[in-house]
């Protein structure tokens, strides 16, 4: 059986740029920065839209659905005491080039397939809510 992640989750250092992303999961909603002009999402957060250079950037909720773009099952004890876990690369449903590195959970090793539909869930750790993904419709 695969673990949900490493035995210890190292955490992001919050600042005014990334706080919305890492704390937004408190209400179960995944958010990305979106341009008010051209409506493109961008990640990681930056002050101007890289597509149209607008400064009109604000966090917006996404559906939390996505597809598995790639994955790797980590076996090495980089973080001691960790059982094998799945590092996943998920394409967010709203935009084809919007991706997130995450963990795939609640999925047996032999059921992991690139292209599978996944949905977000969060694991809280103090002020931080870490977005993980599991097979859609479980």
């Amino acid at each position: 059986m695969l673990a949900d992640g490493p035995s210890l989750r190292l955490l992001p250092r919050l600042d005014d740029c990334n706080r919305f992303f890492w704390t937004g999961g408190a209400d179960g909603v995944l958010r990305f920065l979106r341009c008010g002009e051209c409506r493109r999402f961008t990640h990681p957060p930056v002050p101007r839209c890289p597509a149209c250079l607008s400064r009109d950037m604000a966090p917006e909720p996404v559906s939390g659905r996505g597809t598995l773009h790639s994955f790797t099952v980590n076996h090495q004890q980089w973080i001691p005491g960790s059982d094998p876990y799945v590092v996943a690369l998920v394409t967010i449903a709203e935009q084809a080039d919007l991706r997130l590195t995450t963990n795939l959970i609640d999925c047996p090793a032999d059921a992991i397939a690139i292209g599978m539909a996944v949905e977000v869930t969060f694991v809280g750790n103090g002020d931080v809510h870490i977005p993980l993904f599991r097979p859609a419709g479980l």
Partner: protein
Amino acid sequence: MSDTSPLRRAAITGIGHSQIGRRLRRGDLDLTVEACLAAIADAGLDRDDIDGLATYPGTGIGMGGFSGPGSPELQDALRLQLSWHDGGAEGPAQMRAVIAAAMAVGCGLARHALVYRTVTEATAQAGRASAGIGGSGLGSGGPSLGGGGSGGGVPRFGGFLQWFLPFGAVSAANWIGLVAQRRIHEFGLTRTQLAQIALNGRRNATHNPGAVYREPLCLDDYLAARMISTPLCLYDCDAPCDGSTAFVVSAVETARDAPHAPCRIEAVGTALRGRPSWDQFDDMTTMAARDAAASMWERTDLGPSDVDVAQLYDGFSVLALVWLEALGFCGRGESGSFVEDGTRIAREGTLPLNTAGGQLSGGRLHGFGLLHEACVQLRGEAGERQVPGRCEVAVVSNGGGPLAGSMLLVRDTG
């Protein structure tokens, strides 16, 4: 690139290695000076002739043993009289320092530039293990557990690491595992194909007395090895070592007096066009190697069929496959079948690859070892591992992932 290009006025005239091995327990400056003096002597020069200096990555980058001494430290250690100097980690991967030196020499800022890269990662990691520091098993390419900020006893990280560490994606093995898995999905890459990079490197390392791993390795050994991060097993990941590699890059008009055949820099691949990111790059099967390689061929009349020997970055085996495609030795997605039975990339094959063992078996000299071997082969000085037949054009690549660089070298015939 025209023949008046400054880069073509530079050639590698001297090459040098320090002692190379696992856990030498020698200081990085000690190894660096050894390699640099060897390169200067190899060029037929004295240290008083050196007026340029460059290194990758400079001080204070990465974990213990990664960065080696900075250029001011070496300048002082050898009391060099420099007209130009440079050090840094950003640019077209590790070879950025060699490219910078070639540009400086080509532009007339220096006549003989010394370039070096030093690693003592094996000794540094052994030190950590014996000290039992936090049980940090974080490998090369990963961050230090002690590198974070404050917060509840758990280290906190900003910058790009924040997008990976919370998920246990702490090592380049994880990030590149995603590339390899995507290649399995899109191209049908098999573990037996991937194994050829490791097996070829080990076969070649048996003919290299300086290689860190020389025991025979067979496909069954590979397939039985423990997984690091699927589909990458132990033999797909290079091993930390200690060692320093140095070059002298000289103005071509002086190079023809050098004791060994100069290796002229025909073209460099330096482009960065996609997003420099481990997870946002548009094509996760290739990443930055694609555009770096393309820019190299845009700058020369030579093409892939002119290449006699290839030294392609194999810090992780799959990166060598990525480079084979990026450099046009086969089509996109075709590298698995290109290496399938190992014959094309063998020393006697049509494209001899990583003839000193690469980093997987030769040791993780972090790109510079590959460039060293390219020069040895072009000079015809590789002894029992010399590629048979013509050896006039060599290609070298460094990096992969978000940063990549490549270089085309030709033996200068005057």
